[in-house]
């Protein structure tokens, strides 16, 4: 049987991680194909609801990544984001949502290799956790759509 290929959505900031992922490309560092990047200006812009919606949309895992502390292009967006994630992650965990499926990282514009590693590690870990059907199937549209109609 084919290996489970998790669907992973990454929310990254424009200045550090997006540029770092560009560097991964410029450096031709090969990594897994499972991750789709959504570019935002700053981790401060990443609404917790986006993460929720990613799972509702069928993601098995989510990556959130931005500038290292003190390196934020906007001075403090990542500091605000960090607080948000501390509380959000704890809340999800408290509600029994599998917080292991959200991978947070700081990847700078110079860390092309680190981005590749974050992606590969995420894919490996989420693959081991399996599909997140528990969450995906909360919505009737996913749970009760008869397979012959699956789009």
């Amino acid at each position, binding site marked *: 049987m084919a290996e489970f290929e998790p669907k992973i959505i990454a929310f990254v900031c424009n200045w550090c991680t997006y540029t770092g992922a560009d560097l991964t490309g410029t450096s031709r560092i090969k990594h897994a194909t499972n991750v789709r990047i959504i570019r935002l200006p700053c981790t401060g812009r990443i*609404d*917790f*609801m986006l993460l*929720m*919606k990613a799972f*509702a949309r069928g993601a098995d895992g989510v990556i959130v990544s931005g500038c290292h*502390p*003190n390196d934020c292009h906007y001075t*403090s967006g990542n*500091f*605000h984001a*960090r*607080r*948000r*994630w*501390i*509380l*959000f*992650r*704890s*809340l*999800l*965990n*408290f*509600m*029994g*949502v*599998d917080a292991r499926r959200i*991978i*947070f*990282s*700081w990847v700078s514009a110079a860390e092309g290799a680190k981005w590749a590693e*974050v992606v590969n*590690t995420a894919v490996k870990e989420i693959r081991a956790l399996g599909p997140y059907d*528990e969450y995906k199937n*909360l*919505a*009737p549209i996913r749970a009760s759509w008869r397979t012959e109609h699956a789009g």
Partner: protein
Amino acid sequence: MQDKIIQKAKELLSGGAVQVVIGYGQGTGDRVRAIFIQKPEDAGRLIMDGRCVQNLAGYLMKHEVRALGRAAIVARMPVLRSIAQLMYEEQFKDSDVAVIGISDANELVDLPDLNALKEYVRANPLKLTPEEQAEVDRLDAMTREERWAFWMEETSKCIKCYACRASCPMCYCARCTVEVNQPQWISVPSHDLGNLEWHIMRAMHLAGRCVNCGECTRACPVGIPLRLLNQRIIADIADNFGEEEDYALAAFKPDDKEDFIR
């Protein structure tokens, strides 16, 4: 206690300092309910005892209540906290409201203005009681799967009546996120996803703002222990960020600690 409140209410109303006193009065059977005293001679209807726990702060922002004029509000600690937070959120100013404050030790507290109230609240930071902490810990001690099952069972009862929102003094938004439909962030139908998203969103939007009055849980017609979510966050804020800021999510420390960012 009750007599002191009645006395104070009379003074405020007869002196013209306020036009309405929001307090507790006799309700159905052995219930108490919010009452709105507008005449000094009606002040005798005010009640203060262990049943008087409803957070009345939300009424201060209600259109018809505001129309009555300047209000005094019978305020125990959670109500005082709510007022302090609402003030920080610029929802009203000193001239809008007077408080008849009651301490946790059940004493009348003299809070001549809202600044005094703010100081008083600051001096008594929000903390979970050992019993509340124990209940949070009980859930924490479960496996993730057990917690998921627990909340799925609880939220499956949710009918999206929004009593949690309506009863919460901090839920005063002109248009709640669930009603924002471009894009539709929160699934509206009362199915498993819609219910879960609603309660996650609500807890996050109350993060750093919730005063732990418990109104959401009391209001819930199907008995979902919603305040546990807020209490988890209250404990997290105290543990991670300390207690200084008025709103933890609009503040930060460069060395805020976490153990999960790679």
